[in-house]
């Protein structure tokens, strides 16, 4: 298929449709709304289910119910709306059901603003809901990736009976780029054994996240944790840019990764040996790759559109091998390449400080 100029939110919506989305449940919220609006026309036109729920709380529980049937289901929202989904997400995870959630992050906390942000990294990656569970989290950095990862998310969700979150910031939802859409997949016709579909002749099933006996809950927890080990072994995704001979490693995801790429290019143009590692799966996190990077570079710079969240995961995996610095813009501010270039130059020219934490040092540099 030829490339088309597509807006992020619309691209994700149509990609989901082509991946066989059978039911969508959502609630309007900027900067995600175009996704819901697009599907409000597209889904009925295809005879598929679209419901504008009473709230995100309603939406996630409609997703929960629809997921019980084994169909491909999705919801989408943005930061405050996603916070309202936390109980439902924990239930869906505890029931081991496949579902896809698109989170187009905006500035927070609270009502905050509608500008692009990555400040929900911890909420999504480190469990915003209660209990031990993991979500697969995919972070696109451009529209083509947004399309490809949306399609992938449905496959991964079913393969591992897991929630998959497509995590992006508002600017990716709003921007346009040429991209290619996948061909239309037919809707599923065969469904997993566990699905509750009220089929004639099927043995009766029930689906719940309740395990009243703690030892049974422990067995379920361990089963999920071992499945997660499998996911961690098979599904890590990332992209590297001019890291081969790099002495400085920059790590950033999504839009921050894009901006960092511009800075890395300019730095290279000035002869600074720097490269970029852009995690695509934020969970499972590319720990091995960070570890390898830490073994060959002299220092690492973590760039985020928040106050330093992925930073902690990088620190855990660098495990003291090399000094780590942080640069972030919280509250909905998108950094310009020159800001990151400045940081790279600092690392290239000045001794890397070691006292205090990277976050403390960053705060001392901020106005």
């Amino acid at each position, binding site marked *: 298929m030829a490339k088309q100029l597509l807006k992020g939110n619309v691209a994700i919506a149509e990609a989901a449709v082509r991946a066989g989305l059978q039911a969508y449940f959502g609630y309007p919220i900027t900067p995600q709304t175009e996704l819901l609006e697009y599907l409000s026309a597209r889904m009925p036109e295809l005879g598929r289910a679209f419901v504008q729920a009473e709230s995100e709380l309603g939406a996630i529980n409609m997703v929960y119910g629809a997921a019980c049937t084994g169909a491909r289901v999705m919801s989408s929202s943005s930061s405050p709306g996603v916070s309202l989904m936390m109980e439902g997400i924990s239930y869906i995870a505890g029931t081991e059901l496949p579902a896809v959630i698109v989170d187009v992050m905006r500035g927070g906390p609270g009502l905050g603003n509608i500008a692009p942000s990555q400040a929900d990294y911890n909420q999504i990656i480190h469990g915003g809901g209660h209990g031990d569970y993991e979500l697969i989290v995919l972070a696109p950095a451009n529209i083509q990736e947004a399309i490809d990862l949306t399609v992938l998310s449905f496959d991964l969700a079913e393969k591992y009976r897991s929630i998959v979150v497509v995590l992006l910031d508002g600017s990716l939802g709003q921007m346009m780029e040429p991209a290619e859409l996948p061909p239309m997949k037919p809707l599923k016709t065969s469904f997993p054994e566990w699905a509750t579909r009220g089929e004639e002749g099927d043995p009766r099933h029930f689906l719940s996240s309740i395990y009243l006996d703690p030892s049974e809950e422990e067995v379920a927890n361990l089963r999920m944790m071992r499945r997660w080990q499998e996911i961690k072994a098979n599904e890590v995704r990332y992209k590297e840019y001019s890291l081969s001979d790099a002495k400085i490693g920059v790590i950033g995801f999504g839009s921050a990764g*894009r*901006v960092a790429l*511009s800075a890395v290019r300019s730095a290279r143009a000035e002869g600074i040996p720097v490269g970029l590692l852009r995690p695509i799966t934020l969970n499972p996190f590319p720990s091995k790759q960070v570890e390898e990077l830490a073994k060959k570079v002299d220092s690492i710079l973590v760039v985020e559109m928040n106050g330093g969240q992925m930073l902690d995961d990088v620190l855990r995996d660098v495990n003291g091998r090399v000094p780590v610095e942080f640069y972030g813009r919280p509250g909905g501010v998108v950094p310009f390449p020159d800001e990151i270039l400045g940081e790279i130059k600092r690392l290239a020219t000045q001794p890397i400080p070691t006292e205090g934490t990277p976050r403390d040092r960053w705060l001392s540099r901020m106005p």
Partner: protein
Amino acid sequence: MQNEIIFAGFGGQGVLFAGQLMTYAAMDEGKEVTWIPSYGPEMRGGTANCTVVIADEEIGSPLVRNPKAAIVMNLPSMDKYEPLVQPGGVLVVNSSLIPRDAVRKDITVVRIPANEIAEELGEKRMANMVLLGGLLAHLPVLPVKAIEKALGEHLPAKRQKMLPANIEAMKRGAGY
């Protein structure tokens, strides 16, 4: 090679559409391209702007602090973006609504009475095309033909009859 152009003005002046036209054209020319709007507060009105980046390799940041060029359709936009254009860059000014002259001497400043020209051609809303024509004359990142093709494909059906007028508008703008 990478060029960045910012389109800025009041909502309703067609800055977003002008930017999109350029984006479509760049895509058809097989270039890498990004278009990103400023999406304002969850409410109506106010000023609008968008940034278009056209390049030969994968594009990093879709936003830049110092664009190669800027089209400013009202005074607030002039005040905001004149200082930001790269040295040697291009600033296209809608002189119909912007009384003051530019202060920068290290950039090419093109002043065009876009509203008047557009009204002459019988459609106020074509001021954006006039300015786009002016831009392409001084920053030939894309062949005018490519824009015309994009126009043909993306001008809303009910305004297709205005196609020739729009092309004329670009020509007039290119004259400045």
